[in-house]
Protein backbone atom coordinates (compact mmCIF):
# COMPACT_ATOMS: atom_id res chain seq x y z
CA UNK A 1 0.00 0.00 0.00
CA UNK A 2 2.70 2.41 1.07
CA UNK A 3 4.78 1.17 -1.77
CA UNK A 4 2.11 1.97 -4.30
CA UNK A 5 1.48 5.41 -2.84
CA UNK A 6 5.18 6.08 -2.90
CA UNK A 7 5.46 5.14 -6.56
CA UNK A 8 2.39 7.16 -7.41
CA UNK A 9 3.69 10.28 -5.68
CA UNK A 10 7.14 10.11 -7.19
CA UNK A 11 5.87 9.40 -10.69
CA UNK A 12 3.22 12.08 -10.66
CA UNK A 13 5.66 14.70 -9.41
CA UNK A 14 8.18 13.60 -12.02
CA UNK A 15 5.55 13.84 -14.72
CA UNK A 16 4.64 17.39 -13.69
CA UNK A 17 8.30 18.39 -13.57
CA UNK A 18 8.94 17.00 -17.04
CA UNK A 19 5.82 18.71 -18.32
CA UNK A 20 7.58 22.03 -17.69
CA UNK A 21 10.15 21.05 -20.32
CA UNK A 22 7.44 19.82 -22.64
CA UNK A 23 5.54 23.06 -22.17
CA UNK A 24 8.54 25.11 -23.26
CA UNK A 25 9.04 22.83 -26.24
CA UNK A 26 5.34 23.21 -27.04
CA UNK A 27 5.60 27.00 -26.89
CA UNK A 28 8.49 26.97 -29.35
CA UNK A 29 6.88 24.54 -31.79
CA UNK A 30 3.56 26.36 -31.66
CA UNK A 31 5.23 29.65 -32.46
CA UNK A 32 7.25 28.06 -35.26
CA UNK A 33 4.19 26.37 -36.75
CA UNK A 34 2.18 29.55 -36.69
CA UNK A 35 5.07 31.49 -38.19
CA UNK A 36 5.53 29.10 -41.10
CA UNK A 37 3.23 30.91 -43.49
CA UNK A 38 5.08 34.15 -43.00
CA UNK A 39 8.50 32.51 -43.03
CA UNK A 40 7.73 30.76 -46.30
CA UNK A 41 6.14 33.76 -47.96
CA UNK A 42 8.54 36.45 -46.79
CA UNK A 43 11.82 34.74 -45.97
CA UNK A 44 14.53 37.17 -45.01
CA UNK A 45 12.48 40.08 -46.29
CA UNK A 46 10.64 39.80 -43.01
CA UNK A 47 13.68 40.72 -40.99
CA UNK A 48 15.25 43.08 -43.53
CA UNK A 49 12.16 44.78 -44.90
CA UNK A 50 11.43 48.19 -43.52
CA UNK A 51 7.87 48.53 -44.74
CA UNK A 52 5.12 47.23 -42.47
CA UNK A 53 1.80 47.82 -44.20
CA UNK A 54 -0.85 45.22 -43.38
CA UNK A 55 -3.30 46.79 -45.81
CA UNK A 56 -1.11 45.80 -48.75
CA UNK A 57 0.22 42.70 -46.98
CA UNK A 58 3.74 44.02 -46.59
CA UNK A 59 5.41 42.82 -43.42
CA UNK A 60 8.92 44.08 -42.85
CA UNK A 61 9.89 43.84 -39.21
CA UNK A 62 12.99 45.99 -39.38
CA UNK A 63 11.37 49.08 -37.82
CA UNK A 64 10.15 47.00 -34.86
CA UNK A 65 13.55 45.33 -34.47
CA UNK A 66 15.25 48.70 -34.75
CA UNK A 67 12.89 50.14 -32.14
CA UNK A 68 13.48 47.24 -29.76
CA UNK A 69 17.23 47.60 -30.07
CA UNK A 70 17.34 51.38 -29.76
CA UNK A 71 14.82 51.74 -26.93
CA UNK A 72 16.56 49.00 -24.95
CA UNK A 73 19.92 50.60 -25.69
CA UNK A 74 18.72 53.99 -24.40
CA UNK A 75 17.28 52.31 -21.32
CA UNK A 76 20.52 50.50 -20.57
CA UNK A 77 22.70 53.57 -21.15
CA UNK A 78 20.62 55.52 -18.63
CA UNK A 79 19.97 52.77 -16.11
CA UNK A 80 23.43 51.19 -15.85
CA UNK A 81 25.31 54.16 -14.37
CA UNK A 82 22.46 55.06 -12.03
CA UNK A 83 22.09 51.44 -10.94
CA UNK A 84 25.81 51.25 -10.18
CA UNK A 85 25.56 54.49 -8.23
CA UNK A 86 22.57 53.25 -6.26
CA UNK A 87 24.29 49.91 -5.63
CA UNK A 88 27.46 51.62 -4.37
CA UNK A 89 25.35 53.83 -2.19
CA UNK A 90 23.45 50.89 -0.76
CA UNK A 91 26.34 48.51 -0.25
CA UNK A 92 29.15 50.83 0.80
CA UNK A 93 27.92 54.28 1.57
CA UNK A 94 24.52 54.47 3.17
CA UNK A 95 24.38 54.68 6.95
CA UNK A 96 23.18 51.43 8.51
CA UNK A 97 19.85 53.04 9.35
CA UNK A 98 19.14 53.79 5.68
CA UNK A 99 20.49 50.61 4.11
CA UNK A 100 17.61 48.31 4.88
CA UNK A 101 14.66 50.67 4.35
CA UNK A 102 16.04 52.08 1.10
CA UNK A 103 17.11 48.63 -0.07
CA UNK A 104 13.73 47.07 0.66
CA UNK A 105 11.78 49.90 -0.95
CA UNK A 106 13.85 49.52 -4.10
CA UNK A 107 13.08 45.81 -4.15
CA UNK A 108 9.39 46.53 -3.61
CA UNK A 109 9.38 49.04 -6.45
CA UNK A 110 10.67 46.26 -8.69
CA UNK A 111 7.41 44.47 -7.94
CA UNK A 112 5.14 47.32 -9.12
CA UNK A 113 3.46 46.19 -12.36
CA UNK A 114 5.02 47.61 -15.48
CA UNK A 115 1.64 48.86 -16.67
CA UNK A 116 1.80 51.41 -13.84
CA UNK A 117 5.17 52.66 -15.10
CA UNK A 118 3.60 52.96 -18.54
CA UNK A 119 0.67 54.98 -17.21
CA UNK A 120 2.95 57.28 -15.30
CA UNK A 121 5.04 57.70 -18.43
CA UNK A 122 2.03 58.62 -20.53
CA UNK A 123 0.55 61.18 -18.16
CA UNK A 124 3.60 62.69 -16.51
CA UNK A 125 6.69 61.96 -18.52
CA UNK A 126 5.45 62.49 -22.07
CA UNK A 127 4.67 66.19 -21.48
CA UNK A 128 8.13 66.76 -20.01
CA UNK A 129 9.89 65.09 -22.91
CA UNK A 130 7.71 67.12 -25.28
CA UNK A 131 8.67 70.37 -23.56
CA UNK A 132 12.36 69.62 -23.38
CA UNK A 133 13.06 67.75 -26.60
CA UNK A 134 10.16 68.84 -28.80
CA UNK A 135 7.94 66.60 -30.90
CA UNK A 136 4.72 65.17 -29.52
CA UNK A 137 6.39 63.45 -26.60
CA UNK A 138 5.29 59.98 -27.72
CA UNK A 139 8.66 58.81 -28.93
CA UNK A 140 11.52 56.38 -28.96
CA UNK A 141 13.32 58.55 -26.43
CA UNK A 142 10.39 58.55 -24.00
CA UNK A 143 10.07 54.80 -24.34
CA UNK A 144 13.76 54.30 -23.60
CA UNK A 145 13.60 56.59 -20.58
CA UNK A 146 10.49 55.03 -19.07
CA UNK A 147 12.01 51.61 -19.67
CA UNK A 148 15.18 52.67 -17.90
CA UNK A 149 13.22 53.79 -14.85
CA UNK A 150 11.27 50.55 -14.88
CA UNK A 151 14.37 48.32 -14.91
CA UNK A 152 16.30 50.49 -12.45
CA UNK A 153 15.02 48.90 -9.21
CA UNK A 154 15.71 45.39 -10.44
CA UNK A 155 19.14 46.32 -11.70
CA UNK A 156 20.14 48.24 -8.59
CA UNK A 157 18.97 45.45 -6.31
CA UNK A 158 20.84 42.68 -8.11
CA UNK A 159 23.96 44.81 -8.56
CA UNK A 160 23.93 45.52 -4.84
CA UNK A 161 23.49 41.81 -4.11
CA UNK A 162 26.43 41.00 -6.36
CA UNK A 163 28.61 43.65 -4.68
CA UNK A 164 27.62 42.38 -1.25
CA UNK A 165 29.12 38.99 -2.05
CA UNK A 166 32.61 40.50 -1.70
CA UNK A 167 33.98 39.19 1.60
CA UNK A 168 34.52 41.92 4.20
CA UNK A 169 37.99 40.61 4.92
CA UNK A 170 39.04 41.25 1.31
CA UNK A 171 37.81 44.82 1.48
CA UNK A 172 39.49 45.32 4.85
CA UNK A 173 42.77 44.13 3.36
CA UNK A 174 42.62 46.89 0.81
CA UNK A 175 41.66 49.48 3.41
CA UNK A 176 44.59 48.20 5.50
CA UNK A 177 46.91 49.20 2.64
CA UNK A 178 45.60 52.74 2.74
CA UNK A 179 42.86 52.47 0.12
CA UNK A 180 39.96 54.90 0.00
CA UNK A 181 36.40 53.70 -0.37
CA UNK A 182 36.51 54.27 -4.09
CA UNK A 183 39.87 52.45 -4.39
CA UNK A 184 38.33 49.49 -2.63
CA UNK A 185 35.20 49.56 -4.78
CA UNK A 186 36.99 49.84 -8.11
CA UNK A 187 39.94 47.56 -7.35
CA UNK A 188 38.36 44.92 -5.14
CA UNK A 189 34.55 44.95 -5.07
CA UNK A 190 33.87 45.46 -8.76
CA UNK A 191 36.55 42.99 -9.99
CA UNK A 192 35.39 40.45 -7.43
CA UNK A 193 31.71 40.84 -8.28
CA UNK A 194 32.30 41.44 -11.98
CA UNK A 195 30.62 38.30 -13.25
CA UNK A 196 27.60 38.89 -11.04
CA UNK A 197 27.29 42.54 -12.02
CA UNK A 198 27.62 41.94 -15.75
CA UNK A 199 25.26 38.99 -15.44
CA UNK A 200 22.61 41.10 -13.79
CA UNK A 201 22.95 43.81 -16.43
CA UNK A 202 22.49 41.27 -19.19
CA UNK A 203 19.55 39.78 -17.36
CA UNK A 204 18.02 43.23 -17.07
CA UNK A 205 18.64 43.69 -20.79
CA UNK A 206 16.86 40.42 -21.50
CA UNK A 207 13.88 41.60 -19.51
CA UNK A 208 13.87 45.08 -20.98
CA UNK A 209 13.81 43.84 -24.55
CA UNK A 210 10.65 41.83 -23.89
CA UNK A 211 8.96 44.49 -21.79
CA UNK A 212 5.63 45.46 -23.25
CA UNK A 213 3.46 47.62 -21.07
CA UNK A 214 6.00 50.18 -19.89
CA UNK A 215 6.67 51.17 -23.50
CA UNK A 216 3.37 50.53 -25.26
CA UNK A 217 1.83 53.67 -23.75
CA UNK A 218 4.57 56.01 -24.86
CA UNK A 219 6.05 54.67 -28.09
CA UNK A 220 3.24 55.24 -30.58
CA UNK A 221 3.49 52.07 -32.69
CA UNK A 222 4.71 53.81 -35.83
CA UNK A 223 6.52 51.43 -38.19
CA UNK A 224 9.08 53.82 -39.47
CA UNK A 225 12.81 53.86 -38.94
CA UNK A 226 13.81 57.34 -37.88
CA UNK A 227 17.10 58.50 -36.45
CA UNK A 228 15.24 61.32 -34.76
CA UNK A 229 14.64 59.91 -31.29
CA UNK A 230 11.81 62.32 -30.59
CA UNK A 231 9.68 60.66 -33.28
CA UNK A 232 7.13 58.00 -32.49
CA UNK A 233 8.39 54.49 -33.15
CA UNK A 234 7.56 50.88 -32.40
CA UNK A 235 9.18 47.76 -31.00
CA UNK A 236 8.42 44.07 -31.26
CA UNK A 237 6.33 43.86 -28.07
CA UNK A 238 4.60 47.15 -28.86
CA UNK A 239 3.61 45.86 -32.29
CA UNK A 240 2.29 42.66 -30.76
CA UNK A 241 0.30 44.46 -28.09
CA UNK A 242 -1.27 46.83 -30.58
CA UNK A 243 -1.92 44.60 -33.54
CA UNK A 244 -2.62 41.08 -32.36
CA UNK A 245 -6.30 41.80 -31.96
CA UNK A 246 -6.54 43.54 -35.30
CA UNK A 247 -4.87 40.96 -37.47
CA UNK A 248 -7.40 39.77 -40.01
CA UNK A 249 -5.49 37.76 -42.58
CA UNK A 250 -3.48 34.58 -42.29
CA UNK A 251 -0.23 36.19 -43.26
CA UNK A 252 -0.75 39.09 -40.88
CA UNK A 253 -1.26 36.64 -38.00
CA UNK A 254 1.61 34.55 -39.10
CA UNK A 255 3.97 37.49 -39.24
CA UNK A 256 2.94 38.50 -35.71
CA UNK A 257 3.75 34.98 -34.58
CA UNK A 258 7.07 35.26 -36.31
CA UNK A 259 7.70 38.45 -34.34
CA UNK A 260 6.82 36.60 -31.13
CA UNK A 261 9.14 33.78 -32.07
CA UNK A 262 11.94 36.24 -32.83
CA UNK A 263 11.40 37.96 -29.48
CA UNK A 264 11.36 34.68 -27.59
CA UNK A 265 14.53 33.42 -29.26
CA UNK A 266 16.36 36.68 -28.66
CA UNK A 267 15.38 36.97 -25.00
CA UNK A 268 15.99 33.26 -24.39
CA UNK A 269 19.48 33.72 -25.79
CA UNK A 270 20.23 36.84 -23.78
CA UNK A 271 18.88 35.40 -20.55
CA UNK A 272 20.78 32.14 -21.11
CA UNK A 273 24.01 34.04 -21.60
CA UNK A 274 23.41 35.92 -18.37
CA UNK A 275 22.45 32.80 -16.43
CA UNK A 276 24.94 30.29 -17.75
CA UNK A 277 27.95 32.39 -18.53
CA UNK A 278 27.86 34.93 -15.73
CA UNK A 279 25.49 33.78 -13.02
CA UNK A 280 26.27 30.11 -12.48
CA UNK A 281 24.27 29.21 -9.43
CA UNK A 282 27.23 28.53 -7.16
CA UNK A 283 30.56 30.03 -8.02
CA UNK A 284 33.48 27.74 -7.41
CA UNK A 285 35.78 29.58 -5.03
Amino acid sequence: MNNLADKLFSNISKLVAISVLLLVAWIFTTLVQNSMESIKALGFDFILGNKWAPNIEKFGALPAIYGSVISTFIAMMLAVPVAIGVAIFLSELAPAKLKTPVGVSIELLAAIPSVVYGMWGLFYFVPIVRDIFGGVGISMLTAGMVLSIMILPFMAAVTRDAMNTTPDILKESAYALGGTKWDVIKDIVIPYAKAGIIGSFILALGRAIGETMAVTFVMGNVHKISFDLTKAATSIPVTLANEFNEADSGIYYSSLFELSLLLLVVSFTIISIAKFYFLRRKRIA
Partner: protein
Amino acid sequence: MTHTQKRVFINNAVMVLSTLSALVGMGFLLWILSVLVINGVEALNLNIFLNEGAPSGNPDGGLKHALIGQLYLVGAATFIGVPLGILAGTYLSEYGQKSKLSETIRDISDIMMSAPSIVIGAFVYAIVVHPMGHFSGWAGSIALTIIMLPIILRTTDDMLQLVPSTLREAAFALGAPKYKVITQVVYRGAKAGILTGVLLGVARVAGETAPLLFTSFNDNFLNTDMIKPMASLTVTMYNYATSPYEDWQRLGWAAAFILSMFILILNIIGRLFLLKKKGR
Protein backbone atom coordinates in the same frame (compact mmCIF):
# COMPACT_ATOMS: atom_id res chain seq x y z
CA MET B 1 48.24 67.92 -5.18
CA THR B 2 49.96 64.79 -3.91
CA HIS B 3 48.85 61.44 -5.18
CA THR B 4 47.02 60.65 -1.97
CA GLN B 5 45.21 63.98 -1.97
CA LYS B 6 44.17 63.24 -5.53
CA ARG B 7 42.85 59.84 -4.48
CA VAL B 8 40.90 61.36 -1.63
CA PHE B 9 39.49 63.97 -3.97
CA ILE B 10 38.40 61.38 -6.53
CA ASN B 11 36.95 59.29 -3.74
CA ASN B 12 34.86 62.16 -2.47
CA ALA B 13 33.73 63.03 -5.98
CA VAL B 14 32.62 59.47 -6.64
CA MET B 15 30.83 59.25 -3.32
CA VAL B 16 28.94 62.45 -4.10
CA LEU B 17 28.06 61.14 -7.56
CA SER B 18 26.85 57.86 -6.20
CA THR B 19 24.74 59.53 -3.55
CA LEU B 20 23.34 61.81 -6.23
CA SER B 21 22.46 58.90 -8.47
CA ALA B 22 20.80 57.19 -5.55
CA LEU B 23 18.83 60.38 -4.94
CA VAL B 24 17.87 60.69 -8.61
CA GLY B 25 16.86 57.03 -8.81
CA MET B 26 14.90 57.18 -5.58
CA GLY B 27 13.43 60.52 -6.65
CA PHE B 28 11.97 59.06 -9.82
CA LEU B 29 10.62 56.08 -8.01
CA LEU B 30 9.10 58.24 -5.28
CA TRP B 31 7.58 60.41 -7.97
CA ILE B 32 5.89 57.41 -9.54
CA LEU B 33 4.74 56.15 -6.18
CA SER B 34 3.31 59.51 -5.14
CA VAL B 35 1.55 59.95 -8.49
CA LEU B 36 0.07 56.52 -7.99
CA VAL B 37 -1.08 57.22 -4.45
CA ILE B 38 -2.38 60.75 -5.05
CA ASN B 39 -4.31 59.92 -8.21
CA GLY B 40 -5.44 56.61 -6.81
CA VAL B 41 -6.75 57.90 -3.51
CA GLU B 42 -8.41 60.84 -5.21
CA ALA B 43 -10.29 58.53 -7.56
CA LEU B 44 -11.26 55.99 -4.91
CA ASN B 45 -14.85 55.85 -3.72
CA LEU B 46 -17.34 53.24 -2.74
CA ASN B 47 -19.00 53.18 -6.18
CA ILE B 48 -15.82 51.78 -7.65
CA PHE B 49 -16.33 48.58 -5.74
CA LEU B 50 -20.10 48.43 -6.22
CA ASN B 51 -20.61 49.38 -9.85
CA GLU B 52 -19.65 47.85 -13.13
CA GLY B 53 -18.07 49.71 -15.99
CA ALA B 54 -20.16 52.35 -17.66
CA PRO B 55 -19.84 54.46 -20.76
CA SER B 56 -17.73 57.52 -20.19
CA GLY B 57 -19.74 60.44 -18.88
CA ASN B 58 -21.74 58.23 -16.58
CA PRO B 59 -20.65 59.17 -13.07
CA ASP B 60 -21.64 55.76 -11.69
CA GLY B 61 -18.97 53.84 -13.56
CA GLY B 62 -17.02 51.48 -11.32
CA LEU B 63 -14.46 48.72 -11.40
CA LYS B 64 -16.48 45.87 -9.91
CA HIS B 65 -16.29 43.98 -13.20
CA ALA B 66 -12.53 44.28 -13.35
CA LEU B 67 -11.96 43.47 -9.69
CA ILE B 68 -14.06 40.34 -9.87
CA GLY B 69 -12.63 39.37 -13.25
CA GLN B 70 -9.15 39.80 -11.83
CA LEU B 71 -10.03 37.56 -8.89
CA TYR B 72 -11.31 34.87 -11.23
CA LEU B 73 -8.31 35.06 -13.54
CA VAL B 74 -5.64 35.11 -10.84
CA GLY B 75 -7.62 32.72 -8.63
CA ALA B 76 -7.90 30.09 -11.34
CA ALA B 77 -4.23 30.47 -12.23
CA THR B 78 -3.27 30.07 -8.57
CA PHE B 79 -5.55 27.09 -8.20
CA ILE B 80 -3.88 25.29 -11.10
CA GLY B 81 -0.37 26.69 -10.92
CA VAL B 82 0.39 26.31 -7.22
CA PRO B 83 -0.19 22.53 -6.86
CA LEU B 84 1.58 21.83 -10.13
CA GLY B 85 4.50 24.08 -9.20
CA ILE B 86 4.83 22.56 -5.75
CA LEU B 87 4.70 19.02 -7.15
CA ALA B 88 7.33 19.76 -9.77
CA GLY B 89 9.52 21.56 -7.22
CA THR B 90 9.15 18.57 -4.91
CA TYR B 91 10.37 16.27 -7.65
CA LEU B 92 13.45 18.45 -8.26
CA SER B 93 14.43 18.72 -4.62
CA GLU B 94 13.43 15.31 -3.27
CA TYR B 95 13.73 12.87 -6.17
CA GLY B 96 15.73 14.32 -9.03
CA GLN B 97 18.13 16.30 -6.82
CA LYS B 98 21.28 16.97 -8.83
CA SER B 99 20.37 14.76 -11.79
CA LYS B 100 20.79 16.01 -15.32
CA LEU B 101 17.01 16.13 -15.78
CA SER B 102 16.51 18.22 -12.63
CA GLU B 103 19.26 20.63 -13.52
CA THR B 104 17.82 21.10 -16.99
CA ILE B 105 14.36 21.78 -15.59
CA ARG B 106 15.87 24.28 -13.15
CA ASP B 107 17.75 26.09 -15.91
CA ILE B 108 14.73 26.24 -18.22
CA SER B 109 12.49 27.47 -15.40
CA ASP B 110 15.01 30.18 -14.50
CA ILE B 111 14.94 31.39 -18.08
CA MET B 112 11.15 31.19 -18.28
CA MET B 113 10.88 33.45 -15.24
CA SER B 114 12.47 36.28 -17.22
CA ALA B 115 11.00 35.46 -20.63
CA PRO B 116 8.71 38.05 -22.24
CA SER B 117 5.19 37.46 -21.00
CA ILE B 118 3.58 38.79 -24.16
CA VAL B 119 4.96 35.75 -26.00
CA ILE B 120 3.09 33.50 -23.56
CA GLY B 121 -0.01 35.44 -24.57
CA ALA B 122 0.69 34.70 -28.23
CA PHE B 123 1.17 31.01 -27.43
CA VAL B 124 -2.11 30.75 -25.53
CA TYR B 125 -3.82 32.62 -28.32
CA ALA B 126 -2.65 29.94 -30.72
CA ILE B 127 -3.61 26.94 -28.58
CA VAL B 128 -6.78 28.19 -26.88
CA VAL B 129 -8.28 31.33 -28.34
CA HIS B 130 -7.86 30.42 -31.99
CA PRO B 131 -9.33 26.90 -31.76
CA MET B 132 -12.21 28.16 -29.59
CA GLY B 133 -12.83 31.03 -31.91
CA HIS B 134 -13.10 33.63 -29.17
CA PHE B 135 -11.31 35.16 -26.18
CA SER B 136 -12.02 33.67 -22.78
CA GLY B 137 -11.24 33.98 -19.11
CA TRP B 138 -9.77 30.50 -19.22
CA ALA B 139 -7.28 31.53 -21.86
CA GLY B 140 -6.11 34.37 -19.63
CA SER B 141 -5.83 32.07 -16.63
CA ILE B 142 -3.84 29.54 -18.61
CA ALA B 143 -1.40 32.26 -19.67
CA LEU B 144 -1.01 33.38 -16.06
CA THR B 145 -0.55 29.76 -14.94
CA ILE B 146 2.30 29.31 -17.40
CA ILE B 147 3.97 32.43 -16.02
CA MET B 148 3.41 31.41 -12.40
CA LEU B 149 4.53 27.80 -12.74
CA PRO B 150 8.33 28.30 -12.93
CA ILE B 151 8.25 30.77 -10.01
CA ILE B 152 6.46 28.35 -7.67
CA LEU B 153 8.57 25.47 -8.93
CA ARG B 154 11.89 27.18 -8.25
CA THR B 155 10.99 28.60 -4.83
CA THR B 156 9.56 25.24 -3.71
CA ASP B 157 12.73 23.54 -4.93
CA ASP B 158 14.97 26.05 -3.12
CA MET B 159 12.95 26.03 0.07
CA LEU B 160 12.78 22.23 0.28
CA GLN B 161 16.53 22.03 -0.20
CA LEU B 162 16.95 24.26 2.84
CA VAL B 163 15.26 21.67 5.05
CA PRO B 164 18.10 19.89 6.83
CA SER B 165 18.65 16.35 5.60
CA THR B 166 18.88 15.12 9.19
CA LEU B 167 15.15 15.84 9.50
CA ARG B 168 14.43 13.55 6.55
CA GLU B 169 16.79 10.90 7.86
CA ALA B 170 15.15 10.99 11.27
CA ALA B 171 11.77 10.38 9.67
CA PHE B 172 13.11 7.61 7.44
CA ALA B 173 14.70 6.02 10.49
CA LEU B 174 11.22 5.69 11.96
CA GLY B 175 10.25 3.64 8.94
CA ALA B 176 8.14 6.27 7.17
CA PRO B 177 7.72 5.85 3.41
CA LYS B 178 9.20 8.62 1.29
CA TYR B 179 5.92 10.28 0.30
CA LYS B 180 4.96 10.55 3.94
CA VAL B 181 8.36 11.93 4.87
CA ILE B 182 7.89 14.58 2.20
CA THR B 183 4.27 15.48 2.85
CA GLN B 184 4.38 15.25 6.63
CA VAL B 185 7.90 16.31 7.54
CA VAL B 186 9.66 18.14 4.73
CA TYR B 187 6.68 20.27 3.70
CA ARG B 188 6.14 21.25 7.29
CA GLY B 189 9.75 22.37 7.62
CA ALA B 190 9.52 24.45 4.44
CA LYS B 191 6.01 25.81 4.99
CA ALA B 192 6.91 29.47 5.41
CA GLY B 193 9.25 29.42 2.42
CA ILE B 194 6.77 27.76 0.09
CA LEU B 195 4.04 30.14 1.20
CA THR B 196 6.34 33.07 0.42
CA GLY B 197 6.95 31.60 -3.03
CA VAL B 198 3.20 31.30 -3.60
CA LEU B 199 2.57 34.88 -2.48
CA LEU B 200 5.34 36.24 -4.71
CA GLY B 201 4.08 34.12 -7.61
CA VAL B 202 0.54 35.44 -7.17
CA ALA B 203 1.85 38.99 -6.85
CA ARG B 204 3.84 38.60 -10.03
CA VAL B 205 0.98 37.35 -12.22
CA ALA B 206 -1.52 39.77 -10.69
CA GLY B 207 0.40 42.60 -12.32
CA GLU B 208 0.61 41.01 -15.76
CA THR B 209 -1.10 42.86 -18.57
CA ALA B 210 0.53 41.84 -21.81
CA PRO B 211 -0.42 38.13 -21.77
CA LEU B 212 -4.06 39.02 -21.08
CA LEU B 213 -4.47 41.46 -23.96
CA PHE B 214 -5.32 38.74 -26.45
CA THR B 215 -6.37 35.89 -24.20
CA SER B 216 -8.95 37.03 -21.66
CA PHE B 217 -9.28 40.30 -23.59
CA ASN B 218 -11.67 42.60 -21.76
CA ASP B 219 -15.29 43.25 -20.94
CA ASN B 220 -16.72 46.47 -19.63
CA PHE B 221 -19.36 44.60 -17.66
CA LEU B 222 -19.40 42.00 -14.97
CA ASN B 223 -18.89 38.50 -16.26
CA THR B 224 -18.17 35.43 -14.18
CA ASP B 225 -18.34 32.91 -17.00
CA MET B 226 -14.76 32.02 -17.77
CA ILE B 227 -15.67 30.70 -21.20
CA LYS B 228 -16.29 34.28 -22.22
CA PRO B 229 -13.96 37.25 -22.44
CA MET B 230 -13.28 38.65 -19.01
CA ALA B 231 -12.22 41.98 -17.55
CA SER B 232 -9.04 42.33 -15.55
CA LEU B 233 -7.72 45.30 -13.60
CA THR B 234 -4.62 45.52 -15.73
CA VAL B 235 -6.24 45.47 -19.15
CA THR B 236 -8.93 47.83 -17.86
CA MET B 237 -6.19 50.16 -16.69
CA TYR B 238 -4.60 50.04 -20.11
CA ASN B 239 -7.86 50.68 -21.95
CA TYR B 240 -9.06 53.40 -19.61
CA ALA B 241 -5.73 55.18 -19.38
CA THR B 242 -5.32 55.34 -23.15
CA SER B 243 -8.90 56.52 -23.63
CA PRO B 244 -9.51 60.20 -24.19
CA TYR B 245 -12.05 60.39 -21.35
CA GLU B 246 -10.97 61.93 -18.08
CA ASP B 247 -13.40 59.96 -15.94
CA TRP B 248 -12.09 56.72 -17.42
CA GLN B 249 -8.53 57.83 -16.84
CA ARG B 250 -9.39 58.47 -13.20
CA LEU B 251 -10.82 54.98 -12.92
CA GLY B 252 -7.60 53.73 -14.47
CA TRP B 253 -5.62 55.35 -11.67
CA ALA B 254 -7.93 53.86 -9.09
CA ALA B 255 -7.36 50.43 -10.61
CA ALA B 256 -3.60 51.03 -10.66
CA PHE B 257 -3.65 52.03 -7.02
CA ILE B 258 -5.75 49.08 -5.86
CA LEU B 259 -3.67 46.59 -7.80
CA SER B 260 -0.30 48.03 -6.74
CA MET B 261 -1.30 48.06 -3.09
CA PHE B 262 -2.46 44.46 -3.37
CA ILE B 263 0.85 43.46 -4.94
CA LEU B 264 2.93 45.42 -2.44
CA ILE B 265 1.05 43.89 0.48
CA LEU B 266 1.59 40.38 -0.89
CA ASN B 267 5.29 41.13 -1.26
CA ILE B 268 5.57 42.53 2.24
CA ILE B 269 3.72 39.57 3.79
CA GLY B 270 5.94 37.19 1.83
CA ARG B 271 9.06 38.89 3.13
CA LEU B 272 7.78 38.86 6.69
CA PHE B 273 7.24 35.10 6.46
CA LEU B 274 10.83 34.63 5.39
CA LEU B 275 12.14 36.98 8.07
CA LYS B 276 10.16 35.18 10.73
CA LYS B 277 11.60 31.92 9.56
CA LYS B 278 15.15 33.29 9.63
CA GLY B 279 14.62 34.70 13.11
CA ARG B 280 13.99 31.26 14.58
